[in-house]
C-alpha cells in the first residue's frame, strides 16, 4: 500500500488526481490536507510515502518545507503544477506532476519515484519468493549466518543481505526466528532441521 498525502485546496484537482490513482494498478491510500497548516499534524500520525503539494503553499516558506523534508527523510515530495513557477524553485521537489499530463504519464512518474525508493521495490510488490531467495531462507532457517550462506551458495555476503531484505519486504517478517517459523509453515524446512 502506498500512502500519499495530498495538499491542495481545489476539490476538482484532488478528486481528479485520486480518480487517476484509483484507476491505476498502484494501490494507494490518499489523505487530503486542505491547507499547509494541518500538514505537520497529519505527517506526525502516520508514515507516508509521498507528499503531493501545490507549490504555492511552499514557495512562500521554502525553509519550513526543507525542515519538514529533513524530519521525514523517507517522504518523497511531488509538486502539483498547474500554473507557471520559476523553474529554479521547483528543484525542491523530488518529482513533478503537471496537470496537462496524461494519466499514464502521471502514474509512470510516480512509479519511477517508487523505484528510486528501493532498487528492488517492483520485485517486492509480489509476495512470492524467488528461487534464490528461497535458498537463502532455507539456510537462514537452519541457523546459518550470512557469511556461511554466502559460501554455500557461492554468492557475496552483500548479495545475501540484499536477498534477506527482499524476503523481509515480501513476507513482512524481519527477525531470523520469525523467518524460521515462516519457513516451517511454508514447508521449506522441516521442524527437526531447525537448530536451537
Amino acid at each position: 500500500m502506498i500512502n500519499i498525502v495530498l495538499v491542495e485546496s481545489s476539490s476538482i484537482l484532488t478528486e481528479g488526481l485520486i480518480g487517476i490513482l484509483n484507476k491505476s494498478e498502484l494501490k494507494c491510500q490518499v489523505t487530503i490536507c486542505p491547507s499547509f497548516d494541518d500538514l505537520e499534524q497529519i505527517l506526525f500520525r502516520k508514515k507516508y510515502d509521498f507528499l503531493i503539494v501545490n507549490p504555492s503553499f511552499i514557495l512562500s516558506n521554502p525553509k519550513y518545507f526543507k525542515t519538514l523534508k529533513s524530519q521525514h527523510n523517507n517522504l518523497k515530495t511531488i509538486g502539483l503544477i498547474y500554473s507557471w513557477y520559476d523553474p529554479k524553485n521547483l528543484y525542491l521537489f523530488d518529482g513533478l506532476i503537471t496537470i496537462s499530463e496524461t494519466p499514464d504519464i502521471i502514474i509512470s512518474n510516480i512509479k519511477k519515484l517508487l523505484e528510486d525508493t528501493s532498487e528492488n521495490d517492483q520485485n517486492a510488490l509480489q509476495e512470492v519468493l524467488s528461487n534464490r531467495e528461497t535458498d537463502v531462507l532455507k539456510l537462514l532457517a537452519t541457523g546459518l549466518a550470512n557469511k556461511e550462506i554466502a559460501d554455500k551458495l557461492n554468492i557475496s555476503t552483500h548479495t545475501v543481505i540484499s536477498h534477506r531484505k527482499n524476503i523481509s519486504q515480501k513476507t513482512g517478517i524481519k527477525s531470523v526466528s520469525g523467518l524460521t517459523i515462516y519457513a516451517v509453515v511454508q514447508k521449506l524446512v522441516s521442524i527437526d532441521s531447525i537448530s536451537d
Partner: protein
Amino acid sequence: MFQTNNIYITSDLKMSDIIFNNPYLLHLAEHFGMNVPVKDKSVKKLCEENDLNPELFLTFANLYNGVKYTPKDPLTHHDILNIIKYLKNNHKFYTDEIYPNILRTIHQMAEINDHKEMALVPRFFLDYFNEVAEHLEYENKVVHPYVLELYEQRINPTSTRKPQIYSAKEYQEHHSDIEDKLNDLKNLLIKYLPYKDDQILRRKLILKLFDLENDLNIHSQIEELILIPLVSEMESQLNKSK
C-alpha cells in the same frame, strides 16, 4: 485504538470526557497515579491534586490521541521526576501484566492448534519477552538512575559530574528491535500460521499485539521526543556551570 476522531486535549476538559473519547488514556492516568473514578474533575484539577504539571500531562495525553501538542511553557528538568515515574510504571505494566498475559494467550492457542509450527510460537515469544525484559531492566537500572542523578545535580549543583553513559542512538536501536519482532508475530498470525479451531484466541491475541504495539510506540516517542531532549539540556547546563 485506531480512533481517528480523537480530540485535541486541553486542561479545562473533564478527565472523564477525554477518557470516554479515548479509553486508552486510562493507562496514562494510572501511570501518573490518577485513579478512576475521576468524578467531574477537570484535567487541570487532577493534575494539581497529583503534583503534576498540566502541560506535561497534556503533552502525553495528546500523544496518546495522535496529536502533536506544544506546551505553552516548554517542559523543563522540573518535569523529570514525573516523566520517570510514568516510564517506570509503564515498564511494570509491560513486565507484570501485558507480556505475561499475551504469553498465556499464546499457550492457550498452542493447546488448541496442534499444527507443529504453532509449537514454535511460544518459544519465539518467550525469547522476545526476555529481550524486552532485559532492555527494560537496563533502562531501570542504568538509564533512569543516570537521569535522576543529572536532575539532582541540576537542582543542587555541588557534587561532581558523573561520566556520560547514555546514548540516544543505542536507545533507538533497542526500540526498533522490540517493534520488529512484535510485527513479525502479527504477520505470522494474520498471514501464515495454519488455522485450527483457534479463531477466538487468535483474534484476541492479534488485538492484544496491536494494543501493545501502540503502547510501545507511545512509550518510545515519550523517551525520544521528550525525555532525551531534556536530558541533553540538563547535560549542557551542567557542563556550562562547571
